[in-house]
């Protein structure tokens, strides 16, 4: 690959400096992430109410989730965040090839997560745990369990949509590194990385409330 064009650091006209532009983009992204948090919040609120009002049903339903895949996926996502952080570091240091490789590893880990999640969904469908698709459960818990799985699919589904977008962003950056110097792209990668870590952070809360409720029971 030919050497990328030298980074021309020139701020857009509304900014005084490139650093001011970077800071504005960072703040804008955090404000966007705040709205994303509000997007997920009703699901967490609904879950909290269900866990309070239908505690035994939620515990019984949670024990039917696949804790092995869930735990593996949590570890995969946490690892992907490490690689995303390393990718941003490499970009800031101007390491063209390393940035690209690290971004692709991050995306690959995200895809592994989605593949395992798909496998999990398939198993849940076979075990009649999908609400409205011939849902079956221990009769005394069936209503609460249906609500739990409704929330389970809603939350993990919304998370999967976000992760898919994150994978797309990582791949686009990896592609753009063909034409742009890593250092120049680093400010954009920084914004993409914030999104990636946010999606990881959401999962950090989904994992215990979906997979670990009274696991000992």
């Amino acid at each position, binding site marked *: 690959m030919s050497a990328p064009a030298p980074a021309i650091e020139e701020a857009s006209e509304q900014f005084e400096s490139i650093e001011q532009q970077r800071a504005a983009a960072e703040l804008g992204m955090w404000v966007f992430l705040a709205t994303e948090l509000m997007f997920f919040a009703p699901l967490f609120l609904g879950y909290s109410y269900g866990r309070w009002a239908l505690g035994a049903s939620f515990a019984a339903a949670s024990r039917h989730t696949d804790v092995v895949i869930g735990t593996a996926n949590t570890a995969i996502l946490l690892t992907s965040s*490490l690689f995303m952080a390393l990718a941003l570091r490499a970009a*800031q240091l101007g390491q063209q090839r390393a940035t690209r490789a690290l971004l692709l590893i991050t995306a690959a880990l995200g895809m592994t997560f989605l593949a395992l999640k798909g496998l999990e969904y398939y198993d849940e469908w076979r075990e009649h745990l999908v609400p409205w698709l011939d849902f079956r459960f221990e009769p005394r818990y069936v209503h609460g369990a249906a609500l739990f799985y409704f929330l389970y699919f809603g939350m993990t589904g919304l998370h999967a949509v976000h992760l898919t977008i994150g994978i797309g962003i990582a791949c686009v950056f990896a592609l753009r590194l063909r034409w742009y110097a890593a250092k120049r792209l680093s400010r954009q990668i920084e914004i993409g990385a914030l999104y990636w*870590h946010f999606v990881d952070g959401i999962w950090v809360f989904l994992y215990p409330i979906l997979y670990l409720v009274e696991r000992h029971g």
Partner: protein
Amino acid sequence: MNTIPPVRTLVLVWVSLLTWLALTTATSYLHLGLGNTLINLVIAAIKLALIAWFFMHLRHSDAAVRLAAGAAVLFLFFLAFLSFSDFLTRSVLVAPWQGADNFIGQPAQEAAH
């Protein structure tokens, strides 16, 4: 301002995250009653804090960015508090036409078992 973190720091944060993950998974197999829920939530909060502080480099961010992040969490609690002041103080009254199939009637149903 643009502080580039050393690889060592990032790897240590990752090791710490996986250790907390192992802890939260392991403790959920012990009978701790309400403790299980508390441990799970506290560990999740610690993991999120590690991700935000180091991976999302909040520790090097401007005051404005920290304020935005803090305000998001604060308002989340405000909204949850206001919502729960409604939901948690309702008594569930099952109307005669609401059968056992109805979610709304479920809390009483479950308690009856």
